[in-house]
C-alpha cells in the first residue's frame, strides 16, 4: 500500500533526509564527526564520510535471532538512550526483528518475506545467536522453521551478513563443550556471503552501530581481521589500549581482588585477565555512556570477544597457565618414566653383566707389537 512512498523515501539520500529535517551543513558536519568517532575512524576521515553520506541510501535490515539470550539486542537498545546511534538506526529500515517489532505470528513472518522480496540481493541480514544443527536443527525453531533453514533462506538474498555477538560470530556458549545442540556460528553455515563478525558477549553497542554506519556510509563492509571482525574496532587488544598497561610494563600486579595492588589499580594479569589475547574496543569505547569497562571496574577481562572463550580455562587463571591439568601430566609422566626407566635400566644392567661374563682377559700375548 504505502510501499510507493516507502520506495521514494528510500530513494533519497541520508544527507537529503537530514536537510529535510532542517539540519544545517554545520550540523551535518557534526553528524559526520560523530559518525567518524563512532566508527573509530580518524577525524581526518570526516570529509570522506561527508562525501559518502551525500550519496548513501537507506538499506533494509532483517534481524534474525536464533539460539541466543537477547543480550545482544539489549546491549544495542539499552545503550545510551540512543542518540547518534539512534540517528544511524533511523537511517535503516529495520523490517524484521522479532523482539522489537510490534507484529507477531504470521504477520511478522510476512513482513520478513516481503522485505526479502522487495530488497532481493540488497538487504542487510543481522544475526544474533548460534545455530543448532544437531538432529536436523530441531533444538531451535521459529514459526516451525528451523534456524538453519531460516538462515539459509534469508541469507540467500542478503547483500551481506552481520553476525552480532559471540554466539553468531563464533558459536558462543552454545558451542562450548560439550555443545549438546551442535551449535554453529553463521560463518560455518553460510559460506557464500560477506560476513562481518561483531563479537563480544554482549558486543559493544557502538560497535554494532559503527558497522551499520560503515555499511550505510560507504555501502560496503569495513576491513576485517582473520576472524571476520572489523579492524577498526578489533585491530588492537584490550591490553594494548588498557590504561593499566603501564603497570603491566612495570611488573606491578594485583594478586587478589582485595589486596594493595587491586586497590592501587595495578594490572589484573595474575587474576586471569585475558586482555592481552582479546581484541575488542572496550578499553577505548567503554560501556554505559563511556563510563567504564570491566578492567576499570576492577575485574579481569574474560576474553568474551574471542572464539571459544568459555573453553579457554578458568576466567581467573592467568593467560600463561595451560588450559589443562599439567600437574596431573607431570605426575603420570614421572610414573610412566619410572616404569620405562626401570625397564631400560634393567636392560642396561643385564647388558653390562653379560659383558662382564664375556670379559676378555688381556694377557701378554695380546701385546704383540703390531708392526
Amino acid at each position: 500500500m504505502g510501499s510507493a512512498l516507502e520506495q521514494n523515501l528510500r530513494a533519497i539520500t541520508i544527507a537529503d533526509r537530514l536537510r529535510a529535517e532542517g539540519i544545517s551543513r554545520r550540523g551535518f558536519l557534526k553528524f559526520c564527526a560523530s559518525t567518524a568517532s563512532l566508527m573509530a575512524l580518524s577525524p581526518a576521515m570526516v570529509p570522506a564520510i561527508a562525501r559518502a553520506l551525500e550519496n548513501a541510501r537507506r538499506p533494509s535490515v532483517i534481524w534474525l535471532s536464533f539460539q541466543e539470550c537477547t543480550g545482544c539486542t539489549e546491549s544495542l537498545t539499552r545503550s545510551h538512550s540512543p542518540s547518534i546511534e539512534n540517528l544511524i538506526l533511523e537511517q535503516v529500515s529495520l523490517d524484521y526483528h522479532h523482539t522489537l517489532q510490534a507484529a507477531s505470528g504470521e504477520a511478522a513472518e510476512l513482513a520478513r518475506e516481503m522485505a526479502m522480496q522487495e530488497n532481493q540481493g540488497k538487504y542487510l541480514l543481522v544475526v544474533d545467536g548460534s545455530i543448532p544443527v544437531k538432529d536436523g536443527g530441531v533444538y531451535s525453531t521459529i514459526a516451525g522453521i528451523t534456524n538453519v533453514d531460516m538462515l539459509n533462506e534469508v541469507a540467500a538474498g542478503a547483500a551481506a551478513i552481520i553476525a552480532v555477538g559471540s554466539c553468531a560470530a563464533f558459536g558462543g556458549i552454545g558451542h562450548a563443550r560439550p555443545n549438546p545442540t551442535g551449535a554453529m556460528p553463521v560463518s560455518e553455515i553460510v559460506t557464500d556471503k560477506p560476513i562481518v563478525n561483531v563479537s563480544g558477549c554482549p558486543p559493544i553497542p557502538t560497535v554494532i552501530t559503527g558497522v551499520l554506519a560503515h555499511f550505510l556510509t560507504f555501502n560496503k563492509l569495513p576491513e576485517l581481521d582473520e576472524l571476520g571482525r572489523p579492524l577498526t574496532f578489533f585491530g588492537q587488544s584490550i591490553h594494548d589500549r588498557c590504561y593499566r598497561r603501564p603497570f603491566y610494563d612495570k611488573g606491578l600486579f594485583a594478586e587478589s581482588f582485595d589486596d594493595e595492588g587491586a586497590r592501587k589499580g595495578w594490572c589484573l594479569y595474575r587474576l586471569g585477565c585475558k586482555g592481552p589475547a582479546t581484541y575488542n574496543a572496550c578499553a577505548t569505547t567503554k560501556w554505559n555512556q563511556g563510563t567504564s569497562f570491566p578492567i576499570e571496574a576492577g575485574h579481569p577481562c574474560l576474553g568474551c570477544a574471542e572464539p571459544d572463550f568459555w573453553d579457554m580455562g578458568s576466567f581467573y587463571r592467568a593467560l600463561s597457565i595451560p588450559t589443562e591439568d599439567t600437574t596431573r601430566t607431570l605426575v603420570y609422566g614421572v610414573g610412566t618414566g619410572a616404569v620405562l626407566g626401570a625397564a631400560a635400566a634393567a636392560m642396561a644392567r643385564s647388558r653390562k653383566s653379560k659383558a662382564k661374563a664375556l670379559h676378555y682377559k688381556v694377557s701378554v700375548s695380546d701385546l704383540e707389537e703390531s708392526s
Partner: protein
Amino acid sequence: MSSSEDRAVNAFREQIDGPIASYLSSCVHCGLCAHACLFYTETEDPRYTPINKVEPLRRVWKSEYTFFGKLASMLGLAKKVTDDLLKEWEPLIYDACTLCGRCSMVCPVGNDISYMIRKTREGMVAAGYAPDGLKGATQRAVTIGSPMGVKFPALQVQIHNVEKETGLRVPVDVHGADYMALLSSMEIMNFPEYIGALVKIFDKAGVSWTLCSEAFEATNSGMQIGSSDLEGELLQRVVDGAESLGVKYVISPECGHAYYALRWEGPNVLGKKYPFQVIHILELLDQLRLKGKLKVEDKVDEKLTFHDPCQIVRKGGVVEEPRSLLSLVASDFVEMEDAGVMNWCCGAGGGVSANERAQPLKLAAFKRKKSQLEALGVGTMVTACANCRINMEEGLEENNMQIEVIGLTETLADHLA
C-alpha cells in the same frame, strides 16, 4: 668375541658406569677442556680436545646405555665403533693424553674426563690398539718384572753400591718390618741416589723398613696401557710381597702413576681391600718432620721451584706435604704459575714416556713447562716423580735450558742434620 671391534665394545660395556653416563649426558661441547690440556694448548690441534678422545666409549654408551640411543641403533641410526675408528683414535688416547686430570678440574659441567680416557684405554688394549712402545714395556713388566727389564740382581748391585757409599745397610726381606719400600726401575737404573736417601733418612729417624726381593718394582705399565687385568697381575706381586713380609705399610716411591695405581686403583682392580696401608714417600717424610725425626743442618740457598707430579698432587692428594718439606730444606722456594692441583703435566705421564711414536708430541707439550720455568728464572727444579724428572731433563736439554732437576727425597737426605 673374535673380532677386535667386539673386544673393544665389550670392554666399554663393562666399564660404563653411572658417573660416565652422567658425564656423557652432560657434555655441551663448550670446548673449555681443550684449554686445560697441554696437548691442545701447545699444538692447537682441535682433535686433542680431551672430550673428543672418549668418542669410542661415547658411542657405546649412547647406543647401548640410553633408551633413546638404543631406539636409534635399532633403526640403524647409531654410529658404530669400528676398527677404523679405534685406529684413528689410538694416538689421541695414548700419545696425546698423560691422564694428568687437568681437564677434569675445569670442565664446567663436572666431567671427570681423565677417568673416562682411562676407561677407554681398557677397550683399546683389549682390541689390540695400543702403542708398540707401551705394549713392549707392559710385556716386560709382566714377564720380566719391570718395564725396563730390571731384575733383582741388578737391584742388588745398586744396593751394594749404596751400602758402600753410605756405610749403612739396606734391609732386604726383613720380616715384620713396619714399612716395605718400593722402587721404580727408573730410580734403580737412573737415580740410585734415591735408595741412598731412603737409607740415610730412615736410619736417622729410626724407621723400621725393608725392601722385598720378590716385589720391589712399583711402576705399573698395566695401568698405563689401560688393562685392569695386567695392572692387577703386577699389583698382586706387591700385595703378595707385603703379605709375606707382614708389613704394616707399603711405601710408594717418587713415581706418580705407581702411587696412583697402588693407592687408588689397586684395591678396586684386585677386588679386595689391602691388609696394609699404602703411603707415599713424601707423606711418610712429612710425618717424620712433624714428629721431629727429620731435621736438616742447612738449607739450599739458591732459588728453586717445585714441579707437581700430576698423579701425586692433583690425582693423588699429596699437595701440602712436598711444600712443607721444601720449606724445611729450601730458603728461596718459589711456586710456578698454576702450582698445586692445577699445575701442568711434564708431558710424559700416562705411558707417553714409553711410547716412542709420541716423542715429537711430547717435546711439543714440554713447551708449556718451558714457559712456566722461564717465567720464574730458577736454576733448580725439585720434583717427586722419576718419570717427570727424566722427561724434564730431556726436555730441558732439548731446549738448551740450564736447570738442574732433583728429587725431593734426595735433597732432604743431602741436607740431613
